[in-house]
């Protein structure tokens, strides 16, 4: 298939449509507007496709809820402030066990913050984000190609587990263009029995999140946990980079991981033994590989474009088995590989 030069926002939209997404609702916010605009143009051309510019992010995610229950592969996207508004709907999707894909091209925060690339929404994404005991699968692409691939995977994962899946990109992943080869669409595997389409001649069904009886509510919570445990076992994804013989391992995801690779390549050239673990799923978090690595390596450096959020997951994974340093630049700063290399050297020489 042809390689094309395409921006992350467009690639995400295109991959979604190729994956069979036929319902998109969104609300404008920088830096993901191009995704909404792409859907406005292309979803209408896709057979049976629906595009709605919603009146708010809240409306958009609730439209997705309706469309998903009615059997459509459905998606919404936004950037940080809008994702906060979507939490009500994401919580409802998780409670109802409905599939949906939600894209967050993160920007600087808190509050309106700015429109520059940032990684400040890690906690929100990996802890469910809304109210209640639930989790969402969180995929963190670090290139436009990976964004396209993960978007297609996201639909399959959300169907397989009937759970919302978040794609956690950032302003940079959305805005930059890179060559992309789109994967082949796979047939959808989602049982019709979960689709609400009118009772026909049969029994009526309902989908709801309200469970007033405490014991039944508890059972629903444990049922979700059992599902999450399967996800924890089966869906962890990560990449390791030059960790062989390393003395210090960097842990970074998304765009930050790319920068880390650049820094590591420089440092390896000057004889520093450094490598990278890049979580691709932020939830489920690749804790095991980090623990395993700690058998050989005594020291880690977490690098994030935030004040330190994934840092907590790394510490939880290590349970004190190794030293964990941190280097972070929040607020829309994208550090250079050279800047990060300096921070790594400091940690290395400790």
């Amino acid at each position, binding site marked *: 298939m042809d390689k094309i030069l395409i921006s992350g926002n467009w690639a995400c939209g295109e991959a979604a449509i190729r994956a069979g997404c*036929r*319902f998109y*609702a969104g609300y404008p916010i920088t830096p993901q507007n191009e995704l909404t605009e792409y859907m406005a143009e292309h979803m209408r051309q896709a057979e049976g496709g*629906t595009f*709605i510019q*919603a*009146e*708010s992010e*809240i*409306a*958009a995610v*609730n*439209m*997705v*809820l*309706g*469309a*998903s*229950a*009615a*059997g*459509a592969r*459905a998606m919404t996207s936004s950037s940080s402030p809008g994702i906060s508004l979507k939490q*009500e*709907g994401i919580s*409802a999707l998780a409670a*109802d066990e409905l599939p949906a894909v939600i894209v967050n091209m993160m920007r600087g925060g808190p509050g309106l913050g700015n429109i520059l690339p940032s990684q400040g929404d890690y906690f929100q994404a990996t802890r469910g984000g809304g109210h209640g005991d639930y989790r969402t699968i969180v995929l963190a692409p670090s290139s436009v190609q990976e964004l396209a691939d993960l978007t297609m995977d996201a639909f399959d994962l959300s169907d397989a587990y009937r759970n919302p899946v978040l794609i956690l990109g950032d302003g940079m992943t959305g805005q930059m263009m890179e060559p992309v080869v789109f994967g082949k669409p796979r047939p959808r595997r989602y049982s019709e029995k979960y689709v*609400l*389409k*009118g*009772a*026909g*001649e049969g029994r*009526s*069904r*309902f*989908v*709801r*999140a*309200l469970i007033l009886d405490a014991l039944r509510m508890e059972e629903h919570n444990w049922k979700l946990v059992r599902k999450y445990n399967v996800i924890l076992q089966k869906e962890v994804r990560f990449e390791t980079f030059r960790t062989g013989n390393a003395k210090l391992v960097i842990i970074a995801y998304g765009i930050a991981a790319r920068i880390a690779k650049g820094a590591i390549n420089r440092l390896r050239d000057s004889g520093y033994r450094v490598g990278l673990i890049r979580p691709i799923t932020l939830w489920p978090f690749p804790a095991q590989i980090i623990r395993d690595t700690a058998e050989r390596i005594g020291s880690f450096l977490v690098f994030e474009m935030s004040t330190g959020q994934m840092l907590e997951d790394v510490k939880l994974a290590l349970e004190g088995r190794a030293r964990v340093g941190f280097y972070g630049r929040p607020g829309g700063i994208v550090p250079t590989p050279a800047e990060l290399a300096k921070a790594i050297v400091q940690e290395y020489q400790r």
Partner: protein
Amino acid sequence: MKKVFSRPRSLKNTPFHYCAGCGHSITHRLICDAVDQLGIRGITIGVPPAGCAVLAYNYFDVDMLEAPHGRGCAVATGIKRTLPDRVVFSYQGDGDLAAIGTAETFHAANRGENITVIFINNAVYGMTGGQMAPTTLLGMMSTTSPPGRSATLDGHPIRMSEVLARLEGTAYIERCAVNSPQNILRAGRAIRKAFRYQMDGAGFTMIEVLSQCPTNWKMTAAESCKWVDEVMAQAFPIGVIKDIRKGEKHAD
């Protein structure tokens, strides 16, 4: 003997949990009657709200998808756009529709979403215990307007039907009541008509129902029926508010 009254087929055989004299139960029944009469049970999908009617799926024998508080019209939009040949209705209280869900309602109406909204106006937040609603009448006491609703502090009661009627996307809006046999019959006809409009693709339809809440109004069932006529209907006049097909001949 001729059977003149029975439980509609699309109403489950489950006792209502609503308070005695509550307008919700009557309205549920009217919706089910309409569904039966139009023969659409198998293609109808309902959207219950957060509110006293949150358990509506225990009563309606049609497919249902619960909406978060206020989002009924957005959820119904998602369903209807995905399955355009189904009959989709959202069932919402006044807090749900005219406070937290105003934006979703207004914009679904403005887009002319081909859905039907059953809007239960009982002038209070029933489920949460009788707080002031956007429809609470001036001077009316509630747990959050203890001295009575004040125009200066709390604003005026919102007449949503009149507001939405101004939008191009709305096809048919009628305000009904369920406090007397005549009004109940009329409300039933209105609901049926709204579904029929939807089936013809006419656009957004809404039936507002002035609905007794004896519990929070602190009245007996009989008093509350009287109060609808004497007080509530003065602020919320009953009748057709908009009908784009006015003048056309209908079956009923």
